[in-house]
């Protein structure tokens, strides 16, 4: 039945009613863009913002540093220091723009790829590496950073986000008009995740309770080896309308646009206007994870096409040409990145292996006697080897 896919058999496709097939490379006319791939500033009637030079530089800096984080982690995996790494390469603008739009009181529910969002939330990158190294399931305190645990089961976190947002409503921290109080929640997910029942149920619940949640979908065109057309034949942002809330597609490689759109959506949510879906149209430049070989399923021409839309390059051009940033700024950022790289390498290699007895920690608030006995027996057994 796969052969009857509309893309391949257009005559089988309902002509009068169906929207254009998905998968074209430029996001289409609906896509919000504030900075072209050539670094030119565009304006948008609804989704726009004023950016100070300092702000653009800060966005650039975070993009550059998190790209370095990604490159270092990839290298650490190659050197056997990490078990695995999910690369963010190419998605820096989507993540940094979305993260900069947050207020401290907002809460973020990430997938497993939101390293740049974690960075902006102040999570120590070594606490991210510890997960991929196999030391723990993520070293940061979700409540210290208002940035949840990484979620590996695709889509599950979108429901947590809605529940958390419902809780915020109950707490009376939505729509008060106090900027330091009003709270919104961001649920990250991918294009592949959009197919999961959990994500649709999250849409249902968010609409039903008018919960202050912004669904932020990074459509990076691929779910491992599957192109987005396998998941949807219409732009993903359109999914929202049928659940009763607005959606918009934004150029996910344009940090100004992702910031502006997220900022507006978050503000509306904080005010009590309910959920919003943002589809950040972007591209996973790297492999799905370090075990993946994308040459098996996608062309280098496609990758080249997107390389020309690099999210950092356009900001650099814009900074140099329009906003004002001299070579020294870029040199400073590069130096900072080098330093970060050094810290990550050293820090990662220095991470001790966990004590195996930690297997038994935090299963329960009150561990049952049976489990304590299991732990004690294992401790004795383990000690018998150390003694020997």
């Amino acid at each position, binding site marked *: 039945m796969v052969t009857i896919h509309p893309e391949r058999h257009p005559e089988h496709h309902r002509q009068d009613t169906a929207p254009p097939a998905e998968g074209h490379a430029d996001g289409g006319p609906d896509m919000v863009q504030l900075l072209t791939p050539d670094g030119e500033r565009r304006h948008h009637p609804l989704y726009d913002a004023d950016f100070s030079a300092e702000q653009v530089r800060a966005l650039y800096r975070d993009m550059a540093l998190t790209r370095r984080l990604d490159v270092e982690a990839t290298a650490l995996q190659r050197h056997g220091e990490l078990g695995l790494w999910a690369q963010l390469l190419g998605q820096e603008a989507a993540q940094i723009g979305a993260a900069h739009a947050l207020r401290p009181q907002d809460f973020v529910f990430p997938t497993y790829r939101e390293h740049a969002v974690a960075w902006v939330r102040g999570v120590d990158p070594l606490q991210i590496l510890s997960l991929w190294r196999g030391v723990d399931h*993520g070293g940061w305190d979700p409540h210290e950073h*208002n940035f949840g645990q990484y979620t590996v089961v695709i889509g599950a976190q979108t*429901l947590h986000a809605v529940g958390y947002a*419902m809780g915020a409503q109950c707490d009376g921290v939505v729509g008060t008009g106090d900027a330091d109080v009003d709270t919104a929640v961001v649920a990250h997910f991918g294009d592949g995740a959009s197919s999961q029942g959990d994500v649709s*149920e999250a849409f249902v*619940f968010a609409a039903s309770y008018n919960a202050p949640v912004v669904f932020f979908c990074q459509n990076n065109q691929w779910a491992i080896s599957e192109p987005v057309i396998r998941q949807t034949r219409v732009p993903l942002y359109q999914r929202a309308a049928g659940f009763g809330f607005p959606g918009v597609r934004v150029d996910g490689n344009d940090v100004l646009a992702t910031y502006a759109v997220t900022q507006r959506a978050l503000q509306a949510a904080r005010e009590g206007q309910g959920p919003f879906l943002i589809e950040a149209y972007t591209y996973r430049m790297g492999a799905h994870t370090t075990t993946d070989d994308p040459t098996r399923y996608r062309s280098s021409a496609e990758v080249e096409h997107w390389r020309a839309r690099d999210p950092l390059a356009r900001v650099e051009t814009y900074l140099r040409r329009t906003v004002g940033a001299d070579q020294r700024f870029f040199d400073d950022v590069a130096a900072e990145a080098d330093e970060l790289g050094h810290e990550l390498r050293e820090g990662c290699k220095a991470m001790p292996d966990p004590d195996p007895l930690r297997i038994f920690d935090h*299963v329960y*608030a*009150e561990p049952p006697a049976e489990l304590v006995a299991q732990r004690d027996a294992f401790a004795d057994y383990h000690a018998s080897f150390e003694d020997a």
Partner: protein
Amino acid sequence: MSAGVSVVGSGHLEELDDRSPVGVSKTLTLAKALNLGLHDAMTHDPKVVVMGEDVGTLGGVFRITDGLLTDFGADRVIDTPLAEAGIVGTAVGLAMRGYRPVVEIQFDGFVYPAYDQIVCQVAKMRYRSQGRTPMPMVIRIPYGGGIGAVEHHSESPEAQFAHTPGLKVVTCSDPADGYWMVRQAIECDDPVVFLEPKRQYHSGKAEVALDAAPGPLFASRVVRPVDGAVTATVLAYGPTVRTALRAAEAASAEGHQLEVIDLRTLSPLDLEPVYASVRRSGRAIVVHEAHVNLGIGAEVAARTTEECFYSLEAPVLRVGGFDTPYPASRMEEAFLPDLDRVLDAVDRSLAF
């Protein structure tokens, strides 16, 4: 920012500040006892919210949440869209925000759409976060058969949850336990799958002392102690406790003394009282409605044999639902363990 996760509840119900005056008791059905338990828990702790399908205006299809919407409002008694993963998944988020959600799954057979959220999220959130994200949640499930219902309304899914580390699983068998166990489960900082024997919701009243919990939550209880020689130990829980007690009465007439233990907690199991009894009786029979194959009885048998190896005169025998899907209701009487099948097992045990 940790305000979002401060959790209420010490787990020690003796300390409840709103407990009824000493000596107060009510005569209640199991349904009413559970209803009162939820009511009192909500009164006690403003972070307790009740959610599920039809729990609000209708008060639940079994009326266990009857009146709560009126008393506590729509912010705390939440009729949800028809989606079990959504219910449990949003409850996870509410718990992360500092609430203590009490989720109702309408019938046993409808818990499976939420299975992923329960076993991968609810059960693992504390572990994953190294204790930083507690998951105080109660998932109430009316379970078991014998009500003449259509498919998916009579099942016993307890073993699947008990097999999952991170969850606790308990079940009540009478009104007093219904009231206190639901309150204690809500107080518990761990997620609790709370199984309610639906067949017994309205099947008789009993006195419920409201001034103090009769004992800890995660403990089994000898409900029919035998002085002197014990013929066999019968282990039951939820809907089969009554069956076991009836069997014990019948056996007594024939001169057999059966000690009956209500397991009450299925994960963790509390088997010390079982071992103590089996050391006296040398024989044990586990009775549940769930399929025998990999049911709770399997674990009880394995552990009891390990602990009481030299005391056992016969292998631990199991009486349960057959290893078939739950049948159409006009055959359920034959499917469910009854007095005769328990006595038959006693005979088989004695024949060893």
